[in-house]
């Protein structure tokens, strides 16, 4: 039953009070979130099962509880689980960041890509690989397996944060409107893209290839240690954003109304952007550019459960995790023995789904 039918049904039966009708409606939103969690659980099992060494569902469940053959345990815990955890945590962080950016900037196009965060990270990675020499050997192809594994990550993270700080400094200095902040992000994206192209022009072929490989995005780069770092940042972001859910609801009604409801609009915007940038940057730095999740996950969920951030934040986080997990399964399984670039697959999975919902005219 879609939300439209549900609201009509509730109104028609007219329970005791408006609050009862409303609670029935919000129950539907909670059910959607529970259903998403179940879908992700199913995707996790499917993702573990599929691969060069295929496992049965029973093998998977046994291995998840530490039982089964040593081979199965190695396949599950050493090979597949890190990718799966990276996909879940990365999807959550990117979707939360996109959701928060779209709220605090009141712009449906706001995301790590449109604000120049991804481009800043790519520029930072280019500096590490080409200028600082991480990519001077074939090890550069291996990302974290390179001789100085964290240099690329650190530079990518600094590039992403530098882009964010530049936007925030501009917005504070000139007291910019949300629209101008997004436009400044677009300008910075172009600047970082141009700078990256310029560095690549003077680089060796292997270095350029290493940068291109980095920008493809790869969920297999992160080990458990990096996954813990991403998980800590994503959890902190989740807690922060959820604590601000009423503030984001107020922001949706416009700055004047938000102020009238007791909100410090500028501080909420600034903090939302900083935390969102940290969450997105940590994922991009470890995994490379992953497009579209931050943009599309909140929009897809808006069409199912509306714009109430009490429900939209957790739903977007789960949708982001689900899309990235599904994309990773496709990236690994589409061509046997080849892992396709995750960034391309997220766009191929997310865009048609999003377009379908737009065309179908599903509400909101």
């Amino acid at each position: 039953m879609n939300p439209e039918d549900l609201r009509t049904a509730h109104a028609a039966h007219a329970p005791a009070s408006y609050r009862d009708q409303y609670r029935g409606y919000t129950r539907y939103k909670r059910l959607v979130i529970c259903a998403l969690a179940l879908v992700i659980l199913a995707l996790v099992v499917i993702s573990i099962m599929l691969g060069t060494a295929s496992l049965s569902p029973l093998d998977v469940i046994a291995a998840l509880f530490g039982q089964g053959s040593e081979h199965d345990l190695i396949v599950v815990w050493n090979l597949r689980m890190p990718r799966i955890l990276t996909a879940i945590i990365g999807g959550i962080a990117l979707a939360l960041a996109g959701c928060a950016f779209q709220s605090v900037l009141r712009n449906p196009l706001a995301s790590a890509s449109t604000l120049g965060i991804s481009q800043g990270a790519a520029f930072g990675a280019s500096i590490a690989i080409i200028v600082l020499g991480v990519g001077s050997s074939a090890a550069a192809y291996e990302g974290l397996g390179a001789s100085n594994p964290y240099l690329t990550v650190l530079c990518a993270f600094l590039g992403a944060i530098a882009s964010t700080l530049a936007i925030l400094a501009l917005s504070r200095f000139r007291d910019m409107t949300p629209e101008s902040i997004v436009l400044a992000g677009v300008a910075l994206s172009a600047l970082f893209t141009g700078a990256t192209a310029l560095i690549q022009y003077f680089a060796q072929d292997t270095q350029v290839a290493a940068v291109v490989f980095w920008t493809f995005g790869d969920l297999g780069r992160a080990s458990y240690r990096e996954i813990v770092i991403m998980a800590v940042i994503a959890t902190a972001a989740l807690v922060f954003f959820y604590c601000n859910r009423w503030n984001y609801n107020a922001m949706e009604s416009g700055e004047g109304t938000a102020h009238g409801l007791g909100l410090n609009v500028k501080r909420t915007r600034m903090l939302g952007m900083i935390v969102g940038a940290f969450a997105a940057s940590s994922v991009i730095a470890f995994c490379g550019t992953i497009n579209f999740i931050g943009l599309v996950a909140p929009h897809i969920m808006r069409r199912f459960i509306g714009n109430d951030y009490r429900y939209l934040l957790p739903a977007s986080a789960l949708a982001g995790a689900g899309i990235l997990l599904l994309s990773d399964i496709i990236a690994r399984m589409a061509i046997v023995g080849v892992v396709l670039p995750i960034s391309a697959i997220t766009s191929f999975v997310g865009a048609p789904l999003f377009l379908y919902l737009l065309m179908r005219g599903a509400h909101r």
Partner: protein
Amino acid sequence: MNDAMLEARDIAYAYPGAGQVLEKVSAQIVPGSFLAILGVNGCGKSTLLSCLDDIIRPQRGTVTLSGEDITTYTRDERARKIALVAQHSHAHGVTVYDALLLGRKPYIQAAPRDEDFAIVDRVIDELGLGPLALRYIDELSGGEHQKVVIGRALVQETDVLLLDEPTNNLDMANQVEVMHLVRQAAHEQNIACAAVMHDLNLALRYCDRFCLLKDGKVRASGGSEVMTRETIEDVYGMSVDLVPYENGFLVVPTG
């Protein structure tokens, strides 16, 4: 009993890089009355409203609420005392009930309590919004939407209600309904109401007090006795006739 009076005393404000918008402006918004803030475009009406709600801080003068400087209130305390109906308030993808419940934000710690839902239910009944309760805001007409926005302000249960051009873009029937709602809030709930307005006749019919601004200064302030032909012509820079109508008069442009 609401004894909260919102008062601006000799306030002055200039936007950075622009000329003086307000110069030594004083205004009082008293419980149980509905004040119309009038004047031509750019005369400082909305700036005065922004100063009254502490959106911007005047460079000189003070704004007090119940005798206390407005800046001494925390944001939540202020939001429990003053509600603002902004000119642009267009949430998308939320139901009428969601929009009204948002009015309880200054009171909500983690989740809405039963009391918060009870207040929303009451306002839905008072404003006749029952059939729309689970409709999305985006599906409402302009008049219905403005009723919801005013409803959200009433759900805030404040002593003061400030409105920035509340009848903009509404047809005549909805203008009358919105103004009636605000006057009702002022008279029946003893709320101190003030609205920035352009329609003099609507103001004359529904408001008790008037504050006419010209070039950032108060040209006249008080009851309907200050709405003289000379004052209106001076403030608006055009000739008008005052035509007797019921117990008052209508302002008709001439020439």
